[in-house]
């Protein structure tokens, strides 16, 4: 455990819950979520903002959590994939991914879903082109993207994809 003297306190809201912890100053939001809060849904894919596997929403905008320091999030609201579904019900985006076969190994899935969530918040009825652009920062090696795009299209056409 890092010494208290080497850490700085940060207070933020994660998935609707207030959180107050001490962190090393240069700990990334990704490390904070995964190691400190044990929310391991957010994945390490590259640590450099090149793959999108660590995507979360920060104050409503999708970001690579590996490129954000935890301390930069003081007073902010963070939403991770674990914050999407309530109780037994999958969020409509999650359900669409499942039903459309958009998940194979699943490693890119949380990041894809968060980028999708952010897109549909801003643009509830995106065209396929807009979907591709919104997900251009999320790499997938398994699916070839077709079913991911189909899943997002299905939620978009169905309306009410968020909230």
């Amino acid at each position, binding site marked *: 455990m890092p010494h208290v003297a080497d850490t700085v306190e940060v207070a933020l809201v994660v998935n609707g819950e207030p959180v107050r912890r001490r962190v090393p100053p240069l700990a990334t939001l990704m490390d904070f979520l*995964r190691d400190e809060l044990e*929310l*391991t*849904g*957010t*994945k*390490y*894919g*590259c*640590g*450099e903002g*090149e*793959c999108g*596997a660590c995507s979360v929403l920060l104050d409503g905008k999708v970001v690579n959590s590996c490129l954000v320091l935890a301390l930069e999030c003081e007073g902010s609201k963070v939403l*991770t*994939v*674990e914050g*999407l*579904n309530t109780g037994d019900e*999958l969020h409509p985006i*999650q*359900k669409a*991914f*499942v*039903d*459309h*076969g958009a*998940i*194979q*190994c*699943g*490693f*890119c*899935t*949380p990041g894809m*879903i968060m980028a999708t969530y952010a897109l549909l918040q801003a643009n509830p009825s995106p065209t396929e*082109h807009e*979907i*591709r*652009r919104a*997900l*251009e*920062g*999320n*790499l*997938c*090696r*398994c*699916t*070839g*993207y*077709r*079913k*991911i*795009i189909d899943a997002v299209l299905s939620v978009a056409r169905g309306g009410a994809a968020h909230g």
Partner: protein
Amino acid sequence: MGESAVQPDVRSPSPTQVPTLIGQRIPKLDAPEKATGLARYVEDMKLPRMLYGKILFAGRPHARIQNIDTAAAKALPGVRAVITAADIKLVPFGFGRDNTALKKDKVTCVRDEVAAVAADTPQIAAEAIKRIRVTYQDLPVVASVADALADGAPVINPNVPDNTPFRYDYSHGDLERGIGQSDVIVEETYTLQRVAHCCLGTSGIIADFDATGRLTLYSLTQVPFLYKNDLARVVGLPPENIRVIQPPIGGGFGSKLDIHPFEPICVFLAQKTSRPVRLVFSRQEEFLAMPTRQPMVIRLKSGATKDGTFTFRDVHMTLDNGGHTSWGATTPWISMRTFSSLYRVPHVRQHVDVVYSNNIYACAFRGYGNPQATFALESQVDQLATELGMDPLELRIKNAQEPGETTGQGMILGTCGLRECLETAARNAGWQQKRSALSGQPSAPNRQSSTVNRQSSVVHGIGMASLFHVGGGAKIYRSDGCGTILKVDDFGGVTVLTGSSEIGQGSETAIAQIVAQELGLPIKNIRVINNDTDLTPWDVGVHASRTVFMAGNSALRAAGEAKRKIINAAAVRLKRKPAELVLSEGNVLDRATGQRLESIGKIIRGLHFGARNELVMTTDFYEPPSTAPDDKHMGNISPCYAFGTHVAEVEVDLDLGVIKVLRITAAHDVGRVINRLGIEGQVEGGIAQGIGYCLTEELKTEAGRILNPSFTDYKLCTTTDLPELNLSFVETHDPAGPHGAKGIGEAPLIPVAPAIANAVYNATGIRFTELPLTPERVFTKLKEARANQEPSRARKEADKNDAPTRTQVPSRARKEADRDAPGTQQGGAATHG
């Protein structure tokens, strides 16, 4: 083994009242936990008192290790162990038995492991690694096969003084006769690059010893049982003392078919510290240390008679084996089968040299030598078509095998949908119409053209390629089988313990479908356990597109026996004949009328608690009716074979060399579709990997070092690269497969690159023989071709009666019908970005 291995059961279609799951779109069983972020991969797992391992890699391609000073690392607070080769027993492993967990005397490639630490946190482990001081004596770098074969070249492996650890030779027929029969002959050399698997989840492992010295590994392996045995030898434990648990993995694609040094290293760290140790690669380490697809240089010469009958193929392959040997050195065994057996060809000779160097090395990767071979072969088949003045489709159909043929290499093509795939893909792509339309433009190949000047710099082309691959495993090990243990509980819940592994490809869902269908139970009743060697019976592993075939057959037979038990018990209880009963949707029905007679659960409880006191538990081990290759590489190594054809349509910007894939039309002979959702996913994913292989991916090396070890400069396809897709599945109902199914896992990647390259030829008149077709490579070749051509000479159409011709068709600038200003990218900017 019990039942005959030669005639696996195939269920005839159920009575019409029983709805079938086979061929349906069934969501993947583990998708919900992955969609919610609850699936725990190795990097998400923490055990109590767990330490974090990290490796010091050599970072230089060839050097003698003179001294390793670990004192400063050991002194760092929080460091619990520091090991070097001196601290462990070095047991060589790998196909060439030339790799050890840690390197002792010298390093022979940049990714060689020199030391490792285990520490309280990943940060402390990283700091400790920085504090290890190694003194090297650099040695001359063998940066290429040419370097390795030169006079006086440094010897990489002292046991292999000529730097050539493997040579393979194969032939069937009589090459000289084939050459003599040929009216056209072409010869070309193809260069296939290193590409990385780029699994989104990086490699990692947890090693955990219990109080009795029994080792549990949380491993990403695709071959748990072979892995257990091989690793046992390397770490000095009896294999029965090792348990392999397989958490979900972030991609496999063949990268996890071998033992990688980081795995025994983690075991040694756990041994030394008596604590669990987790060792996970960073992305940079993943690029550096994980072996790639096998790069190859393929010189291919082939011929045909003037009516288009293939006569011979003469193949010489040279493989850069890198500094140590992994499965890459065996990929020619599969490449061979493409050259010998994709299309009918009576005379074939192949020679392969596998040569050491100080480059990084290669392991298995989806297709296992076939993508490389098919690029060469299908590019050359296209070239033969040009020389013959034949439609590339007609030439392929002419030489396509029919069901029941045996190839020159002894492979028995029971079902063979090659012709149907060719015709289906061509029809769905509009092959004839599009080729005519394109040939109506001036300056296309095989058209009569003259002009150089173009009004537009964008041209279009269409091309095709087929694939031939194993469809039910490849018997390269003593057994190619898979075991199943199945139980049905008192309420109709089914547990299927299968030796096969799930690597994201959806095998567990297909197995559940097959079992649910057989037992007439809803799929939600089926639990598949496939990830613990203490529980599951043996399977050779996930490779060679075998899993749904083998595990499906085994599960089908185990479920069949359970079904017989249930039906017999029901017959007794209901006083009916077994043949009158059928299982469907959790109930026993009258087969003729569909009337519900009793619930399955009640029958099972009756068996359990009634006079018989029996549970419904069955087992099966399925060994396929294939044969291992003999010492001449001959043999029917798979019970069935996969075929397919892809048609690619491209747009090429001649001024910038940019290739855009507009559409891929694919037709695959899969025997029978089990899970429509899953099989489409395999094809779509394989196509994306194929596009990357063709256009953008290359792990670049120079003097043994890797130049682009990150996603910034190693270019994977993104959502914006995905073309239109048109998929068809040809069902040839192979009697060997479960419900007639054949394997599909690798096939979709295999023909993509040659289909695209052939389309680029159609568009530009230029043959590319080296991948990837980056804009710079395409641009440079287009520029050369423009400089070489004479401006106003009409192109003479290839005379079919000419003596064998050399192939390089002069490139031609394309003139299109008048168009507007060159195509613009959305966003207002003028050109491709």
